């Protein structure tokens, strides 16, 4: 499934990050959205987009278009 489809509060393990038309996916990989990494979906902005994700102790906001590039397996939220 896509990272954008993971519900709030759940975790996900990244399988693949697509490059995107302009290579946007590369930037995601550069900040740590890399296969095997666990992402926690923290909260959505009140208007429904963007969404806040936690990756390796850093919190990033991504728009849906960005999160669509990330292919994941949903997992239980990992205990901190």
């Amino acid at each position, binding site marked *: 499934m896509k990272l954008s489809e993971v519900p709030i509060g759940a975790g996900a393990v990244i399988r693949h990050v697509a490059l995107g038309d302009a290579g946007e996916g590369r930037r995601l990989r*550069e900040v740590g959205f890399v296969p095997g990494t666990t992402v926690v979906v923290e909260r959505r*902005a009140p208007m429904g987009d963007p969404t806040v994700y936690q990756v390796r102790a*850093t919190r990033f906001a991504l728009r849906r278009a960005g999160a669509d590039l990330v292919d994941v397996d949903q997992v239980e939220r990992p205990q901190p």
Partner: protein
Amino acid sequence: MSTALATRPTQVALVGSPNAGKTSLFNALTGIRAKTANYPGVTVSRREAPIEVDGRPMVIADLPGTYGLEPISPDEAVVADALRGRIDGIDAPDALIVVADATSLERSLFLVAEVLDLGMPTCLVLTMIDEVATRGGHVDTDHLAAALGIPVVGIVGHRGIGLDQVHRLLADIDAWSAPVIGPPAEPEARAAWVDSVARSAAGPLRPDERTRRVDAVLLHKVWGVVVFVVVMLVFFQAIFTLAAPVVDLLGNWVTSASEFARSHLPGLLGGFVADAVIGGVGAVIAFIPQIAILFFILGLLERVGYLARAALLADRLMGRFGLEGRSFVSMLSSFACAVPGIMSTRGIPNERQRIATMMAAPLMTCSARLPVFTLLIGAFVPNRSVLGPLHTQGLVLFGLYALGAVSGLAYAAVVSRFALAGPTAPFLMELPPYRWPTAKAVALHMWEGVWSFLRKAGTIILAATVVLWAMTTLPRATHDVGATPEQRAAHQIEQSAAGRLGKAVEPVFAPLGFDWRTNVAVIGSLAAREVFVSTLAVTTASDERALPERLQTLRHADGRPVYDAPTVAALLVFFVYALQCLSTVAVLHRESNSWKWPALAMGSMFALAYGAALVAHTIVGAIT
């Protein structure tokens, strides 16, 4: 080290992601000696400052914040190009300092890995190490240095802790080396490398509970929006109202200085010094209170961490118009004045959204349009009650504001879609932990905003004022014509270059109903929109107090009123759209680092203004 190298200062560049504390370190190392310039061809600015370490001259350059060295859009290529010495006229750095936030060490290590790939002498400075301790973690810098193969120190940049270590490192810069074995290239192997380096050198941090609790409110569906609206209202009110008394005070001083010059210097020279020179300086300093307040509040919100949250809340809305969350703050500031509004776009990371935002900023109804609107609405719109306290005059004013805002957003969407084609970096915004900023950091931010405005735009605004003074004053009328001082002044301006130009363009503006008197006032308003009112008072041989009545009764030679309803409507709409402000053009030029964007803005907004005014003239003409 060879003597040839010793004659040239050692170039050291700071590399790091946004929010890593790069600027704090830069300021702590260099004080306020920084020079700001633009990289050629892009809106990204570059700061550097000379320092001396143990008698050795160095130049520290603060590169724009970046998450990676693989550029997606042209403005992002600046960092990668600067590091490799591929920018004309800018030397490649001799050594690099990677600045990384110790509280998100793993994420930072990805950038460290990319910098290490460059194979240059490098060291790593970890910032915010105090927060690591308070969150129950630890970082072993020696261990990290061994794992990375480069020197590592930990600091608390804005409090000056650990700076002595950075100085010691800089003194020993010749000993920095690129690591013998770099990090693995393949993405998954690199991620494993990052995790293992981080795990071996640092203990896990407790989640930042304070930030989590604050975000539960500030990003809440209801309370988050309430706080957002309140913060933005306070912000807007502060720019609008806190600045006003200071601007008035400065204005009074400028007026006194002008009168003093006029009464002590003969004729034309007195006029030149009073109106062109002192008036021009006054035009520049009138912006300072607003810019100071804007940069103070933005610096505070940014350093506390709220600006990122505000951008998150507004992003969906602004995204529909090709903008992003941070554009909201710039647009809002532009309702006070487009000059600080355009300057605030510096915080928008992607060039596409940055340019689209600054291009739309002049369409937001700024406070300088208010005197024009107030004059025309007050004189020509009958004040009838429509519904309870709602009156026609208020509704017309509201309609003009709404017209500007809606048009501005649509304009941004068009600019972003058509004029700025090309790849854009994805929307990626870090939500930093909430932090208490130091007064010094906020004060420095404010000072930099004011200083860069004075240095970059001040001279252009001053020059524009002098030119406009000359146009409305020269050549002098050969005879005094008229019985009263007002009539003589009206005759004088009619004979001036602006007067002649105003008459020459009468055929162009005739479809809008503007006669030469209006045209001259429109030309004069290029200095600042509110100058329209004072210039119109001169061209109509009136004074500002009697102006509304004068405009109501002014007739053409054939007895038709000069200001009939269609003309007034056209004039109001014209001022909604026209980029009738050379200060805005100057700032647009400086912030976009080109003449292309200000030229496009002026041209397209004039076309919009003319077209919309023609439509308004036609419609009002048909229904009255």
